[in-house]
């Protein structure tokens, strides 16, 4: 058999599985809607500098003559107190929120998943130590931790992201451990043991791949949650600093002008709301597809 054929043969079943998953995802209207909006948000995030109508107004430009103008054809979402186009800023904010959220969740997964897998697969004293260590982090108030980090390292978006990852990883470790403990008892793991497969290989070949679905579901839901948390931290002045067009920061600044410029706070708020909602919907849809219990062909 030629080498080419081998690759085709190995990849084809994976593509078939993917197609089935996509088909299942597509069947649910809410999930389809969520997928569409998430796709749109990702596109906006990637292309933000190219598609916004006033790229020069994103950061510091001052146009006093255009300040706090109501939404119009020229400025779809109106302008802020410095005369900047809110539409451009909100679109650009997607990029910031999305990147921060992905990084924070990614970091949490990278720390949490291996720790959880090791704890669950080893059991005994290792499990006990790792999980109590995890509990330690879980019991720390997240906001307090963010404030502490901001106080030590200065308040900015990167530090906010680190603070979030530090408070978030224990959830992944716990989820992973729970999964690993149950997967460990499955006959295929016992079979691998009887074959003589080394312990570490069992963890990576049999245990982790079978635990990954709930992690993916959790991650997609957490992206929404992290975006919300970043917005809150920024609102409190612990995250993004002006003139960065971060959604939470924009809302925070808009408070002063709320009475006569409703659009200033409403549009960033709407984007936060929509993003969190669609990621939650996507998570629900993914759970339906990835969880063998609810997966129906």
């Amino acid at each position, binding site marked *: *058999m030629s080498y080419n054929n*081998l690759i085709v*043969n*190995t990849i*084809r*079943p994976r593509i078939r*599985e993917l197609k*089935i998953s996509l*088909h*299942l995802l597509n069947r649910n209207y809410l999930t389809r809607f969520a997928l569409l909006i998430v796709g749109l948000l990702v596109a906006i995030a990637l292309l933000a500098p190219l598609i916004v109508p006033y790229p020069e107004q994103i950061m510091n430009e001052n146009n006093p003559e255009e300040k706090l103008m109501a939404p119009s054809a020229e400025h779809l979402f109106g302008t802020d107190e410095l005369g900047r186009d809110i539409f451009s800023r909100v679109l650009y904010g997607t990029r910031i929120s999305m990147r921060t959220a992905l990084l924070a969740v990614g970091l949490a997964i990278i720390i949490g998943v291996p720790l959880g897998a090791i704890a669950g697969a080893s059991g005994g004293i290792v499990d006990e130590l790792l999980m109590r260590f995890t509990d330690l982090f879980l019991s720390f108030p997240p906001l307090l931790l963010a404030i502490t980090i901001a106080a030590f390292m200065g308040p900015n978006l990167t530090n906010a992201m680190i603070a979030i990852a530090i408070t978030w990883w224990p959830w992944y470790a716990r989820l992973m451990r729970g999964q690993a403990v149950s997967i460990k008892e*499955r*006959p*295929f793991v*016992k*079979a*691998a*043991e*009887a*074959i*003589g*497969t*080394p312990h570490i*290989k069992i963890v990576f*070949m*049999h245990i982790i*791949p*079978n635990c990954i679905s709930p992690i993916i579901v959790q991650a997609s839901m957490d992206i929404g949650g992290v975006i919300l948390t970043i917005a809150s931290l920024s609102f409190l002045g612990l995250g993004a600093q002006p003139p960065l067009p971060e959604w939470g920061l924009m809302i925070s600044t808009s408070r002063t002008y709320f009475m006569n410029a409703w659009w200033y706070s409403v549009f960033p708020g709407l984007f936060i709301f929509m993003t969190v909602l669609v990621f939650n919907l996507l998570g629900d849809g993914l759970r339906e597809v990835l969880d*063998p219990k609810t997966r*129906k*062909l």
Partner: protein
Amino acid sequence: MSNYFEIKNLKVNYKTFEGTKNVLDIDNLIIKKGMSYGLVGESGAGKTVLALTILKLLATPPGEIVSGEILLEGENLVIMPENKIRDIRGNKIAMIFQDPMSTLNPVYTIGQQIINVIIKNQNVSKKRALPIAIEMLGKVNLPDADNAMKKYPHQLSGGQRQRVIIAMALSCGAEFFIADEPTRNLDVTIQAGILKLIKELQNELNVTILFIANNLGLVSVACDEIGILKNGKIIESGKTRDVIDNPIEEYTKILLESVTKEKIGNREKENNNKLILEVELLKKYFPIKDGFFQKTVAWIKAVDGIELKIRKGEVLGIVGESGCGKSTLVNTILNLHRPTSGEVLFNGKNMFKMSQKELRKTRKNIQIVFQDPFWSLNPRLLVKDIIGEPLKVHENLNYEKYLEKVKKLMTMVGLPEEGVFRYPHEFSGGERQRIAISRALSVKPELVVLDEPTSSIDVISQERILKLLEKLRKELELTYILISHDLSVVHSMSDKIIVMYLGKIVEIGSADDIFVNPKHPYTIALFNAIPKLTTNKIDELFTLEGSVPSAINLPSGCRFQTRCPEKFKLCKEKSPEMQHVDSEHYASCHLLNMDIVQK
């Protein structure tokens, strides 16, 4: 008698990824009042879909009732509004599921659950409901009903739970029972009891029964009429005896053959090959820890002094009900558990004194095939990686050689070699079991442990798997340890049989000796509890009272005395020794000791 229950031209479709599929197409099915109708078919034949359709519990989508009528006392259930059907579901039709644990609420006691049902359905006060509940539990022959009322579902055995479910259905005034493989998860001795109960209800309370099963033997004992379901169609039906004695369809004949298993392993009696495995006084106790300092307060004696020898090329069958220690014994032999005491010699070497490296090498020679082919294969791996896992661990092959070997293994168990590029879920239960077998054989083991290899697959595939195993045994000179609660499976394959009860061997001997001339009362009970096609009356089935006692508080004297139909005074006082019956046949029962019996 009028037609109590009737199905006319029922068609049910399923919408799947590949398109719409017809899963049920029944022209006509009639059950008269007070009769029992048995529906037999393989999994996937549409049995459960039918049960759900009758109760209108079918999930739509993906299911869809295309056309047809389901008539209960002349009323069409298909077009009945939801609120009316809900009344019927509780009050007239009751369903008995496979798994009684998931049907009972684990956080309420049996009494609370059954009393609630009675209060709701018969409109009586709590005080009045209590005696009715106890009466109902008595009706289903639940021993010690007063006490059982205070227990939680998990404290009852599977058979007892099934009885509670039936009692609850009866107290709703149900007249029509749909039993969907109600004994699938139960031991044979318990199964016989439930069958008897269902039959009794039919006779005494004039209940109508639709009995769904995949085992023809079971249905033939319990039902007046049977229908054979294949691919959603009833291909043959009629009076039970008529169908069994004069089957018309080829498929029915195959089903009948699968119940009456002939001896597969027919080999020369003399076997002087070398001993491959010797187990000496093996004990495995699990500690029960309690209190703040996790002090050991008691021991679960799962395996308690087992001795056995297996020669190369032999098949040793181990029989016993669930909880008798079969699996623990095997896991200990495989060194997945550390033993409490005793020795296991593999090819003359003590397995428990080996170094890690030696042990890994020895493990290669002892492989295991698990009961459940759905969880014994990693669902995330392609079949080539599943079968090839042992090769990756023990042999260093380049990719092409590796693939060639995997394909060869695949064809050896009778599967197409293209299948290696598929996921396990794309195969049926029987095919998955073949994959599991080929994985076990890929490292050329000497001894293969088959842990209930056929109990979770269809009867027809069972037969094929057993034949395949026998063929492979001859070709590859394998030795098998076959664990099963299905005696016909064990008999058809093994040379030697061990009957286990509560961690001890109660009888040991050649397969024919044990089958033809069983000595221990427990063995006799096990044999007579299996419904056979020749069993005419349900009363011929043997049932054992109660369930297996806990392995923590073992009964005094003989371990079987709490359930033994022939026990006498001595049984309570003294544990019986192994008695020699003839040649290689031993049993541990006082009745076999002539000195004692004469006294």
